């Protein structure tokens, strides 16, 4: 376990040794802040005056916070592949994977360490995003329950992205191929959702399979354990595949 943590911390630290993590965080924060600002603007100028007199007016949390979290999930479709592509593919390309393979570590420990490292980064992203609704506490009261479930939902969604990216990164020694295929897979799941929701031939199975259908309830403040189980299965499945892949490399590589 110590070794897993030490791999995870080193991975996390190494992300910040290059400008990649810094620029990803900066760009994400900037884009999401602009979105946040836009939604707030809209809420103050049009939605609030129009609904203020109604019996149960929608709050700032559901109008502003939920869409920002949704957008964060959408943007991460493109960003996560860039963060995960290097995990194994780059090590293969630079022939540094030997270090881990020669050390007294099991494949499980290597994979868990690497995954935990990227998880730290995800937690950082969600925490930074959480600062935006927090800023609203100056002027209004917030529905903390929705913010909490949205954060948990985003965390799970991004963790599932990362698990898929980790696996695809373990298949190749070209980071860029890992990134493209991860983006392809993640976007495929989005297309599944859209096709499942389409007017003509809606499909419950397609909707179930896509990760966004399990993310949306979290944004409405619904914490459904079946959604949680979907993400956990998704993550564990890809982690197991990655471990198998590393074991197989020794036999066939």
């Amino acid at each position, binding site marked *: 376990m*110590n*070794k897993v943590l*030490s*791999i995870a911390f*080193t991975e996390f630290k*190494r992300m910040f*040794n*290059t400008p990649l993590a810094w620029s990803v965080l900066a760009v994400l924060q900037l884009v999401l802040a602009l979105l946040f600002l836009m939604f707030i603007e809209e809420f103050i100028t049009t939605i609030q005056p129009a609904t203020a007199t109604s019996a149960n007016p929608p709050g700032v949390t559901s109008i502003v916070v939920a869409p920002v979290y949704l957008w964060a999930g959408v943007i991460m479709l493109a960003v996560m592949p860039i963060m995960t592509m290097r995990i194994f593919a780059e090590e293969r390309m*630079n*022939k*540094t*994977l*030997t*270090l*881990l*393979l*020669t*050390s*007294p*570590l*099991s494949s499980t420990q290597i994979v868990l360490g690497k995954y935990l490292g990227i998880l730290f980064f995800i937690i950082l992203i969600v925490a930074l995003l959480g600062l935006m609704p927090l800023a609203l506490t100056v002027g209004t009261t917030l529905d903390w329950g929705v913010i909490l479930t949205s954060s948990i939902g985003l965390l799970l969604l991004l963790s599932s992205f990362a698990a898929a990216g980790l696996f695809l990164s373990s298949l190749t020694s070209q980071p860029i191929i890992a990134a493209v295929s991860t983006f392809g897979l993640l976007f495929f799941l989005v297309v599944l959702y859209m096709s499942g929701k389409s007017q003509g031939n809606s499909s419950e199975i397609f909707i179930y399979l896509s990760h966004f259908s399990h993310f949306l309830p979290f944004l409405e403040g619904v914490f459904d354990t079946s959604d949680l189980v979907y993400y956990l299965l998704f993550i564990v499945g890809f982690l197991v595949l990655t471990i198998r892949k590393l074991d197989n*490399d*020794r*036999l066939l*590589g």
Partner: protein
Amino acid sequence: MSTNALIKAVGLNRFYGEYHAVKNINLTLHKGEVLGLLGPNGAGKSSTMQMLTGNIAPSSGSIVINGIDLLEEPKLAKGQIGYLPEQPPVYRDMTAKEFLFYCTSLHNIPKDKAQKAVNVAIERCALETVVNKLIGNLSKGYQQRVGIAQAILHNPEVVILDEPTVGLDPIQITKIRDLIRELGKDHSVILSTHILPEVQAVCDRVQIINQGETVFSDTFSELAQRQTSNKIIIGFDNVLSELDLKVINTIENLRACEVLSNNRFQLTFNGSADTSSVYKLAVENSWSLNELTPQEETLEQIFMKLVHTDTTSPIGSVTAQKASQTEVIT
């Protein structure tokens, strides 16, 4: 072989798809021994080393490291090994010090002992001046040394180095050879290279691999014994007559006398060359002897003979079978 073998690999085979890269290689490494793995490019040296370090699994065969089966208990066995692959596995975006500390944690060295382990490795690899620089900014030689430091950090029983001096300048080559020789004192070392003088400079024993097969395996002391060769070249200032030649042919145990030029001859003996009787004969007949050179079989000659002949020829297979015995190869 004896029980104190640190590495005992038996019948290693490795296929890459259809390609049979390593064919039935046996390898034994004893305590305090420096073993040189020699071979031309693509001979299977690196594959053999990758198998010994658990990076790839052998298609068949067994590897026992310090009494622990590598395939059954990989974690335990790998703790006994330090490995420097052809390309040092160093993270270019970390400083040498950070990197070495990371390696201590991978090898389960407790925090309180890590500092000491890192210091010792830094000192042995003479890295003091570069510890706080990014590895990516170091020269190839220093990166190589960081790689070696990583391999000896946890004080492993066996250190396996794959072409450690490749791409280094002559001064660094000498330094790394000194380091390897020093490592040989309290660790066992396997060193792969295709530079013959390097093996002669640092190794106790040599194993030559060609096309995936062991074609030669012997210690240098036995090689030296074998080198009391059965051939000498003699040369004279004066031209020898037919009669003189007949006299030479009377030397006991002489198998053949080959004329190289007017006054130079190569004598081949049954058994070891008898230089004293040649010398005596020259004095008796007042030939003015100006050359008397025993023809030694150098490692280079052995290597050339084994690698550049067809490996299926009797030479290759006989030596492979009798590699561990003191057999004369001719």
